[in-house]
């Protein structure tokens, strides 16, 4: 364990992460041990290959995109803080947080931020719109290879028609929020991190 000393989590760091993400102490330590088990290179950061080593992720249709979401713009390594920041989006919304001071900055796991995370997975070029092509790409990933292009195209068209309110043939973030207003996002996008 000697060589790992430099990568052990310090108390101040835990406190900082707690403040930023809202996870509890035990959750952070648990996730830290998971982080280190994924980190085969033992350098305190994860690369894309580390993620790809997870077997279930390989068969997940959205695997690559999810992995990308962890890495900030243009970088190839993610440290523990970044790891936790991304995972914080999936923390369940607690009741006491809902009533918090609205002027304080929104916590990472608020409904809007959860939806923004999902939106960014669609919107690869970060132009704040899901265009038809981007939608087609996601559909193709989810549906597999047996379906013809036209069929997917018509589904994509139909999807955009339903959601598009300002007529620009793409789905903006607000339209995205509106379409999912009936879906219980708080439950669907939350993982019960064990204490």
């Amino acid at each position: 364990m000697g060589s790992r000393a430099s990568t052990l989590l310090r108390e101040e760091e835990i406190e900082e992460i707690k403040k930023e993400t809202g996870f509890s102490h035990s959750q952070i330590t648990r996730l830290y041990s998971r982080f280190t088990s994924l980190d085969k290179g033992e350098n305190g950061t994860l690369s894309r290959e580390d993620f790809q080593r997870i077997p279930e992720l390989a068969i997940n249709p959205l695997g690559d995109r999810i992995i990308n979401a962890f890495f900030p713009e243009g970088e190839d390594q993610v440290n523990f803080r970044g790891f936790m920041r991304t995972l914080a989006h999936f923390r369940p919304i607690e009741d006491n947080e809902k009533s918090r001071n609205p002027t304080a900055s929104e916590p990472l796991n608020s409904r809007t931020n959860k939806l923004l995370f999902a939106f960014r997975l669609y919107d690869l070029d970060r132009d704040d719109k899901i265009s038809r092509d981007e939608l087609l790409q996601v559909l193709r990933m989810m549906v597999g290879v047996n379906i013809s292009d036209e069929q997917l195209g018509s589904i994509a068209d139909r999807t955009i028609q339903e959601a598009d309110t300002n007529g620009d043939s793409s789905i903006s973030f607000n339209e995205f929020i509106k379409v999912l207003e009936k879906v219980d996002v708080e439950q669907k996008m939350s993982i019960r991190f064990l204490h």
Partner: protein
Amino acid sequence: MPLRTGSHSPAGFGKSLPERGLLLLMVLVFLEGSVLPLGAASSPDISHQANLDDHKAAHEGHNSTKKPFPVLALEYDRVQIPFEISLWVLLASLMKLGFHLIPRLSSIVPESCLLIVVGLLVGGLIKLAGEEVPPVLDSRLFFLCLLPPIILDAGYFLPIRPFMENLGTILMFAVVGTLWNAFFIGGVLYGVTQIQPANPSSLNQIELLPCLLFGSIISAVDPVAVLAVFEEIHINELLHILVFGESLLNDAVTVVLYHLFEEYAGVGTVTLLDGILGVISFLVVALGGVLVGAIYGILAAFTSRFTSHTRVIEPLFVFVYSYMAYLSAEIFHLSGIMALIACGAVMRPYVEANISHKSHTTIKYFLKMWSSVSETLIFIFLGVATVDGPHAWNWTFVTVTVILCLVARVIGVVGLTFVINKFRIVKLTTKDQFIIAYGGLRGAIAFSLGFLLNEDHFPMRKMFLTAIITVIFFTVFVQGMTIKPLVELLAVKKKQEAKRSINEEIHTQFLDHLLTGIEDICGHYGHHHWKDKLNRFNKKYVKKCLIAGERSKEPQLIAFYHKMEMKQAIELVESGGGSKLPSAVPSTVSMQNIQPKKPPPAKATERALPQLPKGREEEIRKILRSNLQRTRQRLRSYNRHTLVADPYEDGFSELLIKKQKMVELEKKIKEMSNYLTVPAAPPDSPTMRRARLASGRDTDFKPAQQQKGNKNCSDPQAYSVKPVSDSVPTIQVDLASPQSPDSVNLLDEFKHAGQQQPQVEDQGLMMKPPSGQSGPNKPHEADQARDQQKLTRCLSDPGPSADEDEDEPFLP
């Protein structure tokens, strides 16, 4: 009688409909009440008479004296039982009709209450007539005939996703909650009965075990009553599934407790060993029931795989397999309700992928019909049985029972929610808890179980029955009537009526994948992980076995999309928009907007297709009608076993294809608006024409099997949305007459060819002699399709590669 009618409306009909309805009701009730005892009374007489007559006839036969031939004879006892059953069913259905004719009443009082009242009236009338009330709520009749349809209906249409997501909560309420209720009520009642007042009553003789037995009977929330009341209040899905799921799953607990206490009530003691055996028995009952149901469900799904040639009996398999599951479970004293639910839930996705659209509708409507009639009958019989008795009223016992039921339920719900909320992501609020507690209605199952008790073992059976009935009445009347205003008062979230849009479906699946991925990254084997594994297993192995043909590979998204499109097409046609398909721009019709009224008019700026004037449309409609009629006349001979192919059913799939083409073509038109006035006749016109014919042929003559699944893949080449190729695209509109009345001057490449045809309207523009007449059917159907396509079809050049493939299939 005069008293009753006098109090309701002034004599004479011709008043408003509600009054009439009420009068009709009274008349019906009176009739029903009088016919039944008459039937009962006359039958012994008639049978007696018949016997005498028989005797006489036989006697006289020997003596061969001649009697005049009886022109009209009366023989009731032969048909008595079916006749009376039918009369009851008829009464139930007419009552249902009647209630909905009276508008105000049905919104204040839930149907179940009204039906019990009717039952009371009928029972009262029968008693008044001096006859013996038939034992209508006989336990065998109830458990074997009346209950299964309701449960099957519930199980088949159970929303699986919310049920599974809340399974933990539901199980907690069902198992722990019911146990708590049973023991609390039983225990406290025993304590109450043991209190020695100044004058000892018969109460003190009741021992502990009968009390516990009574507690277990009365503690179970009843699915029939819950369904009946919750149907009308439309609360949000979560609460509905919690209370309803609880009422279904507590059957296992009730069965075990009932049998346990009944067995040992005679002996007088229950040891620890019995308790442990009881727990094991519970697991066996519950899991065994589910297993039996699942086996039958898989069998049914497998059978449905082969029914493509005998569509008529498809619904039968669903019903019979489910009923067999129920009965098989009942043989072993397993939980029949859980078997039925498991069977319905397991078979549904596979059966629905295999059966035809019509069978699906049939199953849906039969289930709804049977469950509705069953429910109505159950409540009426409850009323009749109340009048019948036997009753032994004991103030203390009854009032204590009622109060205890309420108190136990509230404490149970609050306590359990406190524990459950620690594990839930979305916590249950106080409002939710209140509704769950208040929605714990008791019903006919409790009564039937009480009825089953043996009088010898349980001398206080009568008192039990009275108490049970009182509790049922209390919950159904008081709680049933007040829950609706309370829901309004507390502003509980209501059910969201709008159907799922394709957006929600896509994004939900997307989120599922996302969450599964995140769970895998965290190393957390939660909910999503197992669901994903199950889905994968399902897709890889199970679907291949149980779903016929191509549909087994169809992803869920595509199936959903198809269903949605089908629904929309049907609605479009029903709203009269069918023949106006060109003017219904699909882009403005979304699932949210689908109303029975017409779709909104097309935006004028985007349309490039010429508008047909009214006269033209009329002509075209006439052509269609006459062609369709001709097709019909050429039907095959009558065959009882096959469903006659409905011309409109084929039409739907065609509508879908056309709509799709429409959308694509409109897009292309927008892109290619510069090319509209392309000059005539490119050199490859014969091949193009054949290509069009060939592709047209592909869309027309689709065998029935393919029509369901592959409509969108049938001619991928003719209408592929390719980028604008270098070959000049032509847009051609087949009009009935060469003269396009509208401003947009679309060149018709085949106009001159078209003009050469004598009767352009009667024969397909494109079916020309080189192809020959390949059968008498085809030209006509091609006509019909052709005419329809004349309205909608704009063609784009598929490109040279398509021609080579299309060549062969067409030329005979």
